[in-house]
């Protein structure tokens, strides 16, 4: 097998992602852990781009690195934890973590070796997803226009979400809605209902 430029960049990004992930779980300082996790997201996004999934790559950066981890770091900074407070041995955590890791590697291996429509990266040869949309032609008549979406583009992702997997999509959105409601309920705890806007009255 030839060693192409693509292989080189894959190995490079994979190595960075691996190194940063490793540092993320071994650092004693929680801020450093979070920072290395963010740094691990970026090469993973680069690998997504190499798999022709640019939209997923940008969402990875925007949502995980740009929003979720910022909030994590926000909380860590607010708590201002001392590095040593967090560092104590927790054997059950190690055992559960190792089992999960082994399970995940096993799952990926099995689906790669035996899976029918398993993990197949999109390539330049993957056919574009065609979709017919309603438009009006010059005479104002409703006509169907065919639109082609490149694999991995926002259009292709949107089509597969809403045409192929609408149930899964709706389930995920319900899950997120529940999480939002839960967060509001938790945050409101301890605040009296009569508290007017602008002043938060805390009970006791």
């Amino acid at each position, binding site marked *: 097998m030839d060693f192409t430029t693509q292989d080189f960049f894959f190995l490079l990004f994979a190595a960075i992602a691996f190194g940063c992930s490793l540092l993320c779980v071994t650092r004693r300082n929680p801020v450093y852990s979070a920072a290395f996790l963010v740094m691990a997201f970026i090469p993973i996004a680069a690998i997504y781009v190499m798999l022709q999934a640019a939209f997923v790559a940008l969402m990875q950066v925007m949502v995980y690195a740009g929003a979720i981890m910022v909030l994590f770091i926000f909380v860590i*900074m607010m708590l201002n934890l001392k590095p040593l407070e967090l560092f104590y041995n927790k054997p059950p955590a190690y055992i559960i973590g190792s089992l999960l890791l082994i399970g995940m590697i096993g799952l990926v291996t099995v689906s790669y070796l035996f899976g029918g429509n398993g993990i197949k990266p999109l390539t330049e040869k993957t056919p574009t997803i065609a979709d017919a949309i309603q438009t009006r032609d010059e005479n104002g008549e409703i006509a169907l226009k065919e639109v082609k979406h490149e694999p991995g583009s926002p259009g292709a992702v949107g089509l597969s979400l809403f045409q192929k997997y609408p149930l899964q999509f709706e389930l995920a959105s319900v899950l997120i809605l529940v999480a939002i409601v839960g967060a509001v309920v938790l945050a409101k705890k301890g605040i009296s209902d009569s508290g007017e806007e602008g002043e938060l009255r805390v009970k006791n």
Partner: protein
Amino acid sequence: MIAIGESAGFLFDLFYSDAALHSGIRIFILINIVMLIAGFLVYFERKVCALIQNRLGPNRVGPRGLLQWVADAIKLITKEDIFPDKVDRKMYFLAPIIAFAPGLIALAVIPFGSIGGDASQALVMTHVNIGLLFVLAVTSISVYGIAFGGWASNNKFSLLGSLRSSAQMVSYEIAMGLSLVAVILVCESVDLREVVTSQYGTMWGFVPNWFCFRQPLAFLIFFVAAFAEGNRLPFDLPEAEPELVGGYHTEYSSMKFGMFFLGEYAAMTLMAAFTVTLFFGGWHVPFVFGNLVQAGTIGFALVSVLVFAIKLALVLFFYLWVRWTLPRFRYDQLMNLGWKVMIPLALANIVITGAFEAAR
């Protein structure tokens, strides 16, 4: 597709080839232009401030003080580079770099002109067909520079500044992203080049087809959020001098401070260029577009770049104008505005736009 003439052939080669030499030249041009704009903005800001406050402003270095920013830069570089005792050295060193880089990276996907007026002939440093999302994704990284800078400084004021900034930027990113959904719905593309070409033409014969007229609410929300994203007044809570000394950069000196400083101007340039592209028709001039010079020639390319530059300068002037005329918000007002006003408005705008687009 408009044919490209002989004279503009080399431009097409320069911007549409993957050769290392051409990419290198593009990167060189980008970095230098951004640094030049950022440097000049420092001067421009002081002049605008002086104009508004009825003063003269810098007028000693060079003709009309034009070289003031060079003097400022030399001063910053030659100052002693201090690492305070209790800082976290690695993060303290890294933070200004993280704060500076995103503005520079994201500008690479902003189209600033076109050889023939077509989307496929746009002049842009890197051709990305999801440029709009790219800009949003890359700018969302810049918050780490401020967050880490404030934390690593080991100073309560700095930490407060960085906490404010992370909360502020995450909140306003949502409003900004949601306001852009309406724009994407209308132009049916996230390719910034196509966003520009979809703004060609006029409405009812006299209003340019720009998104600031077609999507006024989205424009308003986006513009306010852009101020908050760039930590500019009236939303510069992370560095509010009267209450936080200097906010996240209190402990920074020399060029590390300079990086934060230039990073703010680079981010401002980026946001202004993004605004021009999305809402002011990019390189497009209404009414006379295409009649001025022959499309596909070098003259056309130059005019389109000039148009973009003029629009950029006007938006940047607006930034400075706002900074020197409006007072700072209080922190809870800022959060209320973001979460209780702008996000619901942006959501309503999406619903209305979606209904219109579906009915069309």
